[in-house]
């Protein structure tokens, strides 16, 4: 079995990543299994909720998720989950930097604690503030092409539209909108949330997403490491197909009598 298909590297801000799979760290059955799955995924960028981490610098053994993240293997991308508005997100992002984490931030602002859908207004506000303060900002957004452009304009490093609501495992339900975002993007487009199966990730990559972020589907799998590997392969496959361009499929059947013979006369 071939181990991997080479893809063009992914560039976000000033960093280059060989893997186009980003992985989240919530919902795992243990920190040990999370660490194994992150290794198996081959990811270069791992996001972690700051609310679960100890930011006091006291190495809290009961909030030690950061100790299970291997910063020599991947860049740690703090996220602001739990923030309900721009002020809260900005505050916790600053705190993360003060605690020695990278000044990259995955902006997640969801005032609705149920579907965790991102607030577009607060997300734009927080992006403006954090970009000004020198952060590399990766905002999680609904699949809204206009918002994506507004975020690009104020300096977001990527846009991260959702495929479907977090944890729903329903795949690329926002496909039509994501296609527009990809078409118009000047920064990498990372499809985030709702990708429940490797085939969903492959589909996102085939339509030209630069990367995908997967969490729930890996974390709650019976074997997270195998599922992580499965997603990694699907991402590679989808990206490779995008890079070479898939074989054309014919949208209409070829008529038995050509319609253009009159032009040859």
């Amino acid at each position: 079995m071939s181990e991997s298909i080479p893809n063009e590297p992914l560039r976000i801000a000033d960093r280059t990543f060989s893997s186009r799979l980003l992985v989240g760290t919530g919902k795992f059955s243990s920190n040990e299994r999370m660490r194994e799955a992150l290794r198996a995924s081959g990811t270069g960028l791992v996001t972690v909720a700051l609310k679960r981490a100890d930011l006091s610098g006291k190495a809290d053994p009961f909030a030690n998720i950061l100790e299970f993240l291997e910063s020599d293997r991947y860049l740690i991308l703090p996220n602001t989950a739990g923030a309900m508005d721009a002020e809260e997100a900005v505050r916790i992002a600053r705190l993360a930097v003060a605690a020695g984490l990278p000044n990259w931030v995955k902006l997640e602002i969801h005032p609705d604690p149920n579907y965790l859908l991102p607030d577009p207004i607060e997300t734009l506000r927080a992006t403006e503030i954090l970009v000004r303060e020198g952060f590399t900002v990766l905002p999680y957004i609904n699949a809204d092409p206009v918002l994506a452009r507004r975020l690009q304009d104020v300096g977001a490093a990527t846009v991260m539209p959702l495929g479907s609501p977090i944890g729903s495992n329903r795949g690329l339900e926002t496909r039509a909108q994501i296609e527009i975002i990809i078409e118009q993007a000047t920064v990498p487009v990372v499809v985030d949330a709702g990708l429940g199966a490797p085939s969903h990730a492959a589909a996102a990559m085939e339509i030209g997403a630069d990367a995908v972020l997967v969490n729930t589907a890996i974390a709650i799998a019976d074997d997270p490491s195998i599922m992580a590997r499965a997603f990694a392969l699907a991402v590679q496959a989808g990206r490779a197909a995008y890079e070479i361009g898939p074989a054309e499929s014919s949208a209409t059947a070829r008529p038995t009598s050509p319609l253009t013979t009159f032009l040859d006369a």
Partner: protein
Amino acid sequence: MSGELFSRRLPGIDFGPLLRQSREADARTVAAILARGRARDLTEFAALLSPAADERLEDLCRLSQAVTRRHFGKTIRMFAPLYLSNECVNICKYCGFSRHNAIPRITLPVERVVEETRLLAERGFRSLLLVAGEHPKYVSNGYVEEVVRRVLPFMPSVALELGPLETQEYLPLVRAGCEALVVYQETYHEPTYKDLHTAGPKKHYHWRMDTPERAYQAGFRRLGIGALFGLYDWEYEALALAAHSLHLTRTCWKAQITLSLPRMRPAAGEFQPRYVLPDRAMVRLLCALRLLLPHAGLVLSTREPPAFRDGLFTLGITHASAGSSTEPGGYTSFDPEAWKPTRAQEGEQFHIADERPPEVVAAAIRRLGYEPVWKDFDQSLVLSEN
């Protein structure tokens, strides 16, 4: 907040057909709901409480587990209750703190609360539920606020379970850094409520019922509600609690709703539970709530015995307490090694059933393939600089 208060909506719910459904739903109705994997309304919820649903209990549990895992992962958020006071002006026939019960009464001095909280923090807890009886003397003098400010530096999440207050009175507590407010209606059945709560501010049924909405207006991010099973017919309580949750989910949309299903435990006083929520029915109720409210937090306390708790942890529970004392000052009297009381806890509200120390409960959760999460909130979210 939008729309009218729940106390005004509740009388408009026709419980007759819902109760019938909860007792007489047929197998086909239950099968159709299970096939969809979601209870779309109270009528479908009621069907999942029925004996016909009991025939499909294994399937119901599987669905509930799967839905919970998608939204909360294989994790259980741990918390500890800390009783500030058992002084209470109410007379509630079933409660150990009821005004006429001859138990030693105390309100812990702030220093003692800090000491107790430190013990809980050493045990791992990063989420605290401050509980108190209902007494005016520590409401108006800033006592609770002071407690919150003192413990927040080492206890990132603080929730409150106090006698109901006005929105204005909640504001300083939210500003001090409290994340959540918990208030149980005890019983949603008004005649029973009036019979059991004979004196004190708690006798005001509607005032208590609308507490979550007042708390939401003050800015709490999590609202805990519950019914105390054993006071009235469990199907009625379950339906009303579900209706209350649906209402709050729609009107208080920025708050997470958590539900508790406490069953009566032995307590000081003469009261004997007149109604029983059997184990199997409790499992149906838990799963039915999950299929109606996929995102609601479901809380499990130490009122339930170890084996039953271990069974429930993976079926839909999201929050659990462990090693609890229900007596003000109880933790400082625990043996620090065994985490067991070293003396009779005469001032306790009720006696717990799962007496395992927190680390033993955490180990049991891990053996079930779940991660006990101690810290899931950061005070930097609620507090501006210092």
